[in-house]
């Protein structure tokens, strides 16, 4: 650990802790997940950077949404995302969550993931290579440093927009709103 890093640690331990200890939810949302095991195991070894998979969303703060999202999965994703502890970060992985990708005309996949939950960063490609995940994570570090990875704040502040879109798609939702639906309220 060099000196600059040490100073950063003393100045902003919270930020640095969040940076170097990204615990990912283990959720194989879709086909992109096939490139996640190589990243976690011996060839690329993401544990070097503190990225490990954890069993429950309560413990996680990084959500890799790997690939296309069907309406049924979206429900599970929203539930998982709402259970995660703040601060939490999401990365959309692959072309499909960006704009539908290959499945732009499929009746069962949503086309734009960021209409339903906030996304901090995108990794394009089908499949993106494992290196791309590292680039994505390092970009996320930079964003955390500069205070730009604020998806979870956006979700809280514009919850009416996100919840509205979710309800519009699902019709009715089985669980109550996470935050109050009045605009701009902070539910602390």
């Amino acid at each position, binding site marked *: 650990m060099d000196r600059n890093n040490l100073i950063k640690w003393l100045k902003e331990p919270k930020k640095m802790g969040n940076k170097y200890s990204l615990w990912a939810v283990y959720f194989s949302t879709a086909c992109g997940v096939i490139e996640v095991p190589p990243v976690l*195991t011996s060839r690329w070894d993401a544990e070097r950077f503190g990225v490990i998979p954890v069993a429950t969303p309560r413990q996680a703060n990084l959500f890799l949404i790997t690939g296309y999202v069907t309406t049924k999965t979206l429900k599970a994703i929203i539930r998982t995302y709402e259970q995660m502890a703040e601060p939490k970060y999401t990365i959309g992985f692959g072309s499909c969550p960006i704009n539908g990708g290959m499945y732009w005309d499929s009746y069962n996949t949503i086309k734009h993931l960021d209409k339903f939950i906030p996304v901090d960063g995108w990794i394009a490609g089908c499949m993106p290579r494992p290196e791309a995940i590292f680039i994505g994570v390092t970009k996320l570090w930079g964003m955390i440093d500069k205070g730009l990875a604020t998806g979870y704040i956006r979700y809280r502040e514009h919850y009416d927009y996100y919840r509205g879109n979710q309800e519009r798609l699902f019709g009715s939702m089985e669980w109550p709103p996470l935050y109050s639906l009045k605009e701009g309220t902070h539910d602390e």
Partner: protein
Amino acid sequence: MAERELELIFGPQHLGMIGNLSISLNVEGDTILSARVNPGYLHRGFEKLMEYRNWIQNFPLVCRINMIESEPVEMVYAMAVEDLAGIEVPERAQYIRTMIQEMSRLSCHFTAAWAYTSILGFDTPAQWAMGDRDYLLDLFEDLTGARVYHIYNMPGGVRRDLPEGFEDKLLAFLDAIHNRLPDYNSTFFENRLFYERASGIGKISPEDAIEMGGTGQVLRGCGIKHDIRKLEPYAAYSDMDLEVPTREAGDAYSRVLVIRDEMVQSVSILKQCIEKMPSGKVYEKTPNPFKWKIPKGETYVRVESARGEFGLYLVSNGGNRPYRAHFKTPSFVHGLVILERLLKGANIADVGNIMLSLYVIAPEIDR
């Protein structure tokens, strides 16, 4: 619901769930009273999407049905199109196809070994298996330009010839794998604790396996010598010296041992492919994809994927697109029929164990 019964949702967000599938379990203590598999988290309606794209455009689409092993899907679609359009495939292309099928089978088995071991808590062989699989993906990248989805098979052959020096690289890899198999044997397959965990779990009788439509390891694990490569040889399998490994017990342990023996077989077939590889062209010219119309007809083709029979029922009405395509995937029956049956009365600790010994891969069920 009885007093001590709990409803436990296993997946889709779960460390023990490989793929995106959900199983709801009724448990009492550690015992499962009943299970219901709830698929559909990955349903994209492939067969409908195919009706909207022309014959060639479908190639990048179909390989995405199975993320772990995309080759058999491409193969089955290419074979169906060739059958309907009456295209002959050059011999060298057949050999290359055989080769890439077996490479893909090996990589799929490595993934399965990773998944299986990590679910049981064997960290070490899990990490090794994933690491070794990556060398194979490097070879794929060399050959086709992509790691996961290759889009290498085309109607009339394969997209391009082997790159220079590819055979040597493949042989070096095969030797390395051959040297590594004893390591896997001692840490995983012949580990006493693994035997304790897997033997007697998920037992299925041959009659039930046939009745419920099992294929692949499910049949071979209970002593039935059934392999499409042998029964109805496609590509260049009729020239290959191939043994069908079987085990008698019908439990998870025997299914895993069948998988191990298949890996040995795949290594041997790959060596034979390199040895017998004929020269010649690898691609038969097909018409302009945008104007290509295939005569009216229907066909059913099938290949042996790493998990069992992979079939495609393809109907053409004489247009430039498929009229109807329907995939018969091995995981559909294994996951929705056999898994539900075997989970009844099992221990919670064995959900992943049984699921992976049946080789259930979620996108294949949902399509």
